[in-house]
């Protein structure tokens, strides 16, 4: 923890990597569109180079992570100086958590940028695309690296802004870019979806703001390290008001719940696919939704100290709430992924569900004193592995959509012969998503389940069961979307395209980045196998060891509850079997016709309708927040503003005076205008009140 008096230049020179890593993409966002005025090729090159510069600068931090000595809090300059409190400084917090997340963000964003060059080829609005894209990356890295809440908020809002710009990228709202449907299910225009994302996450952001300012009121600082270091005093002070610590914990979670699309603020993410597909990949894998997970991990030490260090029972609200919300969301979203018709929507629900797993791991980490590092490590491990396979899945989906020109899986089918590379790449990623060994997803999902199990409280056991069931559902919907896309008979749409000779494999610039992602997925899985032989190789152990240091001043018990080592793999294996058999019968092998099965039973049909209508949550929100507010404003405008206030006061009162004036005119044919009369009355009223005030001797 370094508090420096060095000049800003010295700080920049001493730690160039962390600073450049977010500044360069932002500079790139400003320069790249300008280069576009000269040459398109140069513009694309510039975008790729700026994204690469972020990767390179971020990678300079990796040695710190490996050798276990990192700079900590590096402060550049005073940003806002308060009269009665320590100043707010521009600073970065470089510790294992931020180094890991920053590198994941930078690398995956870079690969998506390369892919975009191919995907967005020929788009006339490319300068705007690159502006938002690079600005997105820069803001996400700023969010991850900042050492205080206010700078984090700058990145946080910046990410929201860019998501708005990119989701609503096709702002002309041509019909081909609408998502949802098919009718009668409502369809939404891209600009509508962008707004929805910004407003729904805006709700969460406001809750987070409230939490930050409550904490600030008691702690007097926005700096993470200072908050952790002084937590024993300000947490006690804050918890003196009963209920306040719980409230703060819940509000603090509001931001992550919104950004990471967790229940009840999850409804924006399925529509967020209205943007170009690389944008979906960026939002789902590298940026935005990961911000919430990061923030929960970042602030969880405060509540851990409060609960286990200071014995403040209300601090556990934080962990219980996020564990329950995460687990429920994982289940909720997985259930909807099982019926989605749009390929990207299935992937979107899958993201919500997987983020739920991460939140669950971070939540259970506080339920047992000894599980903290295991839970934290599991959450971050799953973040990394999900980032890789989900980016791969979305980019593959982009290749498919590009080729078949439809968002519905019913317009696909049998694509594996036409697009063998995409098929292979997407299959690997989908298997990793389902948790098939030895891919990375298997290890990280088992880590999550394991941390649930060893927490050992009744709640965590219940959550474990739900999470395990969700694992079965995950495999089921993975098989479903892979089968509907690549296997089975080609749909009419595909037949037509084949005849016209339009269907083709994606170009190398698009599949190479995906291949790199898949190689990483496999590589992590292989390293984890080595970890079985020697713990030194285990990614989970490595994360656990490194992350245990970032908590700060208190000692963390690293070994708490135990569970038989074979238990989690065998349970998740059983779940895979259930999901796999069901998926095989219905979709891959087509032994049973899924549609006929649903129609044959009223119960199944009911469930299907319920899931298809998104548990009716989306329509309920629209009813209350959109239709409700829109009709309220009309009613208020018509009945209060126009009828009573404007009519009454601005027309009625003058008319009254006018009437009086006509009466008066009979007596006195002067030049009194209504206005002067009005004024005289005003003065009279005031004079009388003056008399009342003073002569009356109040």
């Amino acid at each position, binding site marked *: 923890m370094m508090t420096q008096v060095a000049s800003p230049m010295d700080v920049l020179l001493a730690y160039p990597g962390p600073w450049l890593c977010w500044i360069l993409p932002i500079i790139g966002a400003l320069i790249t569109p300008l280069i576009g005025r000269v040459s398109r090729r140069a513009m694309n090159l510039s975008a790729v180079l700026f994204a690469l510069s972020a990767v390179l600068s971020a990678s300079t931090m990796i040695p710190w992570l490996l050798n276990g000595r990192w700079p900590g809090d590096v402060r550049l300059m*005073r*940003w*806002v*100086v*308060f*009269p*009665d409190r320590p100043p707010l400084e521009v600073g970065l917090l470089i510790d294992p958590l931020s180094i890991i997340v920053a590198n994941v963000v930078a690398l995956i964003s870079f690969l998506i940028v390369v892919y975009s060059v191919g995907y967005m080829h020929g788009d006339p609005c490319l300068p705007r695309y690159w502006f938002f894209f690079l600005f997105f990356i820069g803001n996400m890295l700023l969010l991850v690296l900042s050492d205080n809440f206010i700078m984090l*908020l*700058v990145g946080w*809002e910046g990410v*929201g*802004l860019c998501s708005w710009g990119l989701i609503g990228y096709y*702002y*002309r*709202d*041509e019909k081909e870019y609408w998502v949802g449907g098919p009718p009668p299910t409502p369809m939404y*225009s891209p*600009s*509508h979806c962008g*707004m929805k994302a*910004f*407003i729904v996450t*805006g*709700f969460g952001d*406001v*809750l987070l*703001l*409230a939490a930050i*300012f*409550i904490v*600030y*009121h008691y702690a007097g600082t926005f700096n993470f390290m200072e908050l952790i270091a002084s937590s024993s005093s300000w947490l006690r002070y804050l918890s003196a*008001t*009963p209920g*306040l610590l719980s*409230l703060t914990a819940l*509000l603090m979670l509001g931001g992550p719940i919104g950004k990471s699309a967790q229940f009840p603020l999850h409804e924006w993410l399925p529509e967020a696919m209205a943007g170009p597909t690389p944008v979906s990949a960026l939002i789902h894998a590298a940026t935005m939704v990961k911000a919430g997970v990061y923030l929960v991990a970042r602030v969880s030490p405060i509540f851990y100290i409060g609960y286990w260090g200071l014995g403040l029972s209300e601090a556990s609200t934080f962990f219980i709430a996020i564990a329950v919300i995460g687990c429920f969301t994982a289940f909720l979203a997985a259930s909807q992924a099982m019926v989605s018709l749009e390929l990207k929507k299935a992937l979107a629900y899958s993201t919500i569900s997987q983020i739920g797993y991460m939140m669950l791991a971070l939540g259970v980490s506080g339920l047992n004193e000894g599980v903290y590092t295991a839970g934290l490590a599991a959450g971050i491990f799953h973040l990394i592995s999900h980032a890789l396979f989900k980016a791969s899945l979305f980019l593959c989906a982009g290749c498919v959509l590009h080729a078949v020109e439809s968002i519905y899986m019913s317009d696909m089918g049998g694509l594996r012969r036409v697009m063998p590379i995409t098929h292979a790449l997407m299959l690997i990623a989908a298997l990793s998503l389902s948790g098939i060994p030895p891919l990375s997803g298997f290890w990280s999902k088992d880590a999550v389940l394991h941390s649930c199990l060893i927490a050992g409280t009744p709640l965590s056991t219940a959550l474990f069961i739900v999470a395990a069931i969700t694992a079965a559902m995950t495999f089921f919907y993975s098989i479903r979307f892979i089968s509907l896309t690549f296997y089975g008979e080609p749909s009419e749409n595909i037949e037509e395209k084949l005849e016209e000779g339009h269907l083709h494999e994606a170009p190398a610039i698009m599949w190479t980045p995906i291949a790199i992602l898949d190689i990483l997925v496999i590589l992590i899985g292989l390293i984890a196998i080595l970890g079985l032989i020697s713990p030194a190789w285990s990614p989970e152990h490595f994360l656990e060891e490194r992350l245990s240091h970032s908590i700060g001043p208190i000692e963390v018990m690293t070994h708490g509850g135990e569970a038989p080592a074979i238990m989690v793999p065998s349970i998740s294996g059983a779940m895979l079997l259930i999901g796999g058999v069901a998926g095989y019968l219905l979709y891959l092998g087509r032994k049973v016709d899924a549609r006929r099965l649903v129609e044959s039973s009223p119960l199944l049909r009911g469930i299907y309708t319920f899931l298809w209508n998104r548990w009716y949550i989306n329509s309920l929100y629209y009813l209350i927040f959109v239709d409700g*507010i*829109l009709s*309220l*404003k*009309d009613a*208020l*405008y018509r009945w209060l*503003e126009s009828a009573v*206030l*404007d009519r009454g*006061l*601005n027309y009625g009162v003058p008319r009254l005076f006018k009437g009086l004036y006509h009466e008066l005119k009979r007596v006195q044919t002067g030049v009194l205008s209504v*206005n002067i009369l*009005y*004024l005289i009355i*005003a*003065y009279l009223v*005031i004079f009388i*009140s*003056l008399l009342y*005030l*003073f002569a009356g001797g*109040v």
Partner: protein
Amino acid sequence: MSQLYPLTQILIIPLAATPVVYLYARKMGRSAGYVAAIPLAYTLLLLLTLLPEAAKGVKHLESYTWAPSIGLTFGLLADGLSIWMMITINLLALLMSIYSVRYIDHRVKELFGGESPSTAYASYYALYLLYEVGMMGTVMSTNLIQFYLFYELMLVPSWLLINNYGYGDRERVGLLYFLWTHVGAVILLVGILSTYWITGSFEFSALSLIAAKPQAPFIVAAFLIGFLTKMAVFGLHLWLPDTYTQAPTSITALLSPAMSGIAPYAIVRFIVVPMYPVYQRFQPILVAWALITLIYGGLMSLAQDDVKRYLAYSSMSQMGYILLGVASMSTLGTSGAIFHYVSHGFGKCILFAVAGALLYRIGTLSISRMGGLADRMPVTATLTLLGIFTIAGVPPTSGFMSKWMIFAGVFDGPLSTSLMGISAATVILLMTVITIAYGLWIVKRIFFGPLAEGLEMVEDPPASMEAPLIILAVIAILVGLYPRIVSDCLFSALSALHV
């Protein structure tokens, strides 16, 4: 520096330039806007030279004997609290005078047809400068009478400007504006006279003397009603929508961001600082009032089809924010309120000027007849977005800085003492999502979607209308990146407020 009497110059030079600009405009017509900009640019430079001192908490005072019999001096003051008010007013006036060149030319030709009288230009710019002097004088005043005189001085030229150059039934609207704010001012006068009656002085310093007197709540109430009328909070806002809509756009771009914001400044100067304990009793009412204004203005702006009327209600809603900051009774919140005046000034000035540009190019302000304009007017669309982000508090604009300070202040003041208060404050914050909603919705309706019929040939406004707005947007972002340039001044003036 003090030998140069910068504040006196700031007042005198635009005043002295008025006849010059008038005569120039008689001869040369519309280009007088550039001439009017010269004295304003000079005074802005003078103000900037005072900035470093103000940031350190130094008060710059120039005073002259006025009426010794009642101990009245004519004083001009610039300190941390007022310096950014003055810079904002001056900057906006400067940029809008350049913007006016093409805009008012368009309006005058509309009003008078082909052979427009040169007096129309002349009186516009003369009144324009007088209006600026009125606003600056109000902010610089050191005593109540002087304040009142300037307060009325800014009213008269602005009324005439609306009356002569406005749209629609401009005479009625001008009168409406005049009466409402004038009645507000008169109630203010009651407070001023009572203060004199009790303390025997008109100086601001006398205000702290009445804090302990039993009449203090009544005086505070009189001040508040006077200022809240100018601020157009809910119930006292009825002059606002018509005025902002029908006033010539270059004037609305000053009315809303620059003028109505003088009221919260005055609340801080008159009430919050000298009479803190008395003010505390009004806090619950003010918080509630701020909240109602904020939400009501937001809902009303959602209901509008006219761009300027939409912006008018959005101004009302933003005044709710500023009032919330003032009502938070904390150093952070009060500073945030004045800071937000600055941010709102930048953002709302851009937006009203954009409305003027739309009128200039399209000839209508009806949102339902627009759509898809981002293709045709990319610069205007970008400026609109930046304006909306500045107001909605999206980083890196200055609005982000000012808004979080207001919010932090709400949780830092007396509201934070109980769980109820904190929950209430949270609900207040939750309501603020509506500002993002109405901001983005109008962008969607005007600029996104398919291009509306008949707009195929529309393009961005001429450079003299665009450049001032680009400058403002850049300044808004720079202040957002380096907020200390504003916050140091405010904190130095308001640190005594310690809560």
